[in-house]
C-alpha cells in the first residue's frame, strides 16, 4: 500500500470523501487486506485518542473561567450602564424639577398616612390583642410592612394599664425591630412611656423579667 492509498483511506475514515472517492476506497478495501488492516488501525487510534482526551471535555467548566468571563461581562455591561445611567439621571433631574412640588406633596401625604396607619396598628393591637400574638399591617403601595406584638401587661400604682410590646418595621432598606412600653390613657389610646433602644430588640422574650415596676 502506498502513501496515496493511505491518505485516501485516512480521508475516508475522517468523512472527507465524496461519493466517487468513497467508492474507490471501498473497492480498495474489498480487494486489499492491508487496506482493511490500515482502516482498523485508524479507527482504533481514534478510539484511543477520544478515550484519552474526551474526559477533559466532559468535566464541568472550572471556576477560573466562569470568574474570568463573569468579570469581563460585568465590565462590558458597565460600559453600557454608565452612559445610560448618566442619561437617565439627567432626565430624572429635569422631571424632578418640574414635578418636585407634586412629588414632595405626594410623598409627604404617603409618609403621613403610613405613620398614622402604623400608630393606629400599635394602639389597636395594644387595646385588643393578648400578649404574644402579633398583628400586622402591609402598606398598599411599596414594600413597607409593620407588625406589633404585645409582650406583657402591667398595672401602675395609679391603676393605669401599661404594656410592653415589640414593633417590627420592614421596608426595602431592611428590618428594624424595637421594643417599647405604652400606657393606656383612654380607649384605644396607648402613648409610649418609653422606647427601648433597637439593639435590645433581639433579646429573647421568653426569659424576660418584668421590665419596670411602675
Amino acid at each position, binding site marked *: 500500500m502506498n502513501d496515496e492509498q493511505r*491518505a485516501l483511506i485516512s480521508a475516508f475514515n*475522517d*468523512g472527507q470523501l465524496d461519493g466517487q472517492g468513497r467508492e474507490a476506497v471501498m473497492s480498495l478495501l474489498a480487494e486489499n487486506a492491508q487496506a482493511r488492516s490500515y482502516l482498523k*488501525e485508524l*479507527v482504533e487510534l481514534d478510539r484511543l*485518542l477520544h478515550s*484519552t482526551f474526551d474526559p477533559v*471535555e466532559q468535566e464541568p467548566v472550572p471556576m477560573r473561567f466562569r470568574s474570568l468571563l463573569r468579570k469581563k461581562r460585568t465590565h462590558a455591561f458597565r460600559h453600557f450602564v454608565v452612559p445610560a445611567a448618566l442619561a437617565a439621571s439627567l432626565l430624572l433631574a429635569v422631571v424632578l424639577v418640574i414635578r418636585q412640588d407634586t412629588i414632595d406633596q405626594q410623598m409627604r401625604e404617603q409618609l403621613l398616612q403610613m405613620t398614622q396607619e402604623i400608630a393606629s396598628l400599635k394602639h389597636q393591637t395594644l387595646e385588643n390583642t393578648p400578649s404574644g400574638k402579633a398583628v400586622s399591617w402591609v402598606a398598599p403601595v411599596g414594600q413597607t410592612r409593620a407588625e406589633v406584638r404585645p409582650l406583657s401587661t402591667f398595672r401602675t400604682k395609679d391603676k393605669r394599664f401599661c404594656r410592653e410590646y415589640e414593633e417590627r418595621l420592614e421596608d426595602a432598606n431592611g428590618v428594624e425591630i424595637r421594643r417599647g412600653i405604652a400606657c393606656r390613657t383612654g380607649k384605644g389610646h396607648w402613648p409610649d412611656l418609653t422606647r427601648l433602644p433597637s439593639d435590645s430588640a433581639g433579646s429573647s422574650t421568653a426569659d424576660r423579667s418584668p421590665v419596670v415596676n411602675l
Partner: protein
Amino acid sequence: MDENGADNRSLNDRRTHCAEDMVQPDLTEQLIELIPRMRRFATGLSGSAAWGDDLVQAACERLLQRKDSLRPDTRLDSWMYQVIRNLHIDGIRAQSVRDRNADEIKLVADLRPVSTDPMQNHIRLGEVNDAMQLLSEEHRSALMLICVEGLSYKEAAEVLQVPMGTVTSRLVRARKSLVEKLGGESFELELGMSR
C-alpha cells in the same frame, strides 16, 4: 462499512455544531460553551490539564481584549484553536502567572483512570498522552483537531494556516508516527484483540 458510515455521520454532526459558532453579540455565552472543547484541545496539545487551562485562559483573555476587531464572519472556535496553538508555540507556559513546580505537572491520564477493565485498556490511556507528547507539534495539532475535535480537513487547514494537501499528508504521517510511538507490536496486538 456501516460502522465507518456511522462514524462519518457523527463527525458531520459535530461539524454542523461547529459551523454555528459564529461571533454573535453575546460573546461570553458562546465562549463558555466552547471552553470544554478548548480545554480538551489544549490538554492534548500541551500534555497537561494545568498547562491546557492556562492556554485556554490566555486565549479567552486575548479574545475578550480583541473582540471589537473580530470580523462578523469569524468562526469563534477556529479563532480559539488558532490562538491556543500559537500561545503554546510561543511558550506561554513560561509566562504563566501560576507558580508550578515539577510535581504539579501531571499527565492527564495519570489524573483520570478511565476503566478498571484491563482488557478494555490494553494500551493504557496514559501511554497515548505520553506518545502524543513525543510527536512534533505539527503532528499533534493535526491529530487533535481532526481526530479528536472533529474538524474537517478544510477547517483544520484554516486553523493551521497551511494548504489542505499539507493537512492530508501531515495527518497520515502523524497517525503513522503515533502508532510507532505507541509501540507497533503492542498496537498490533491491541488491534488483534479488538477484531
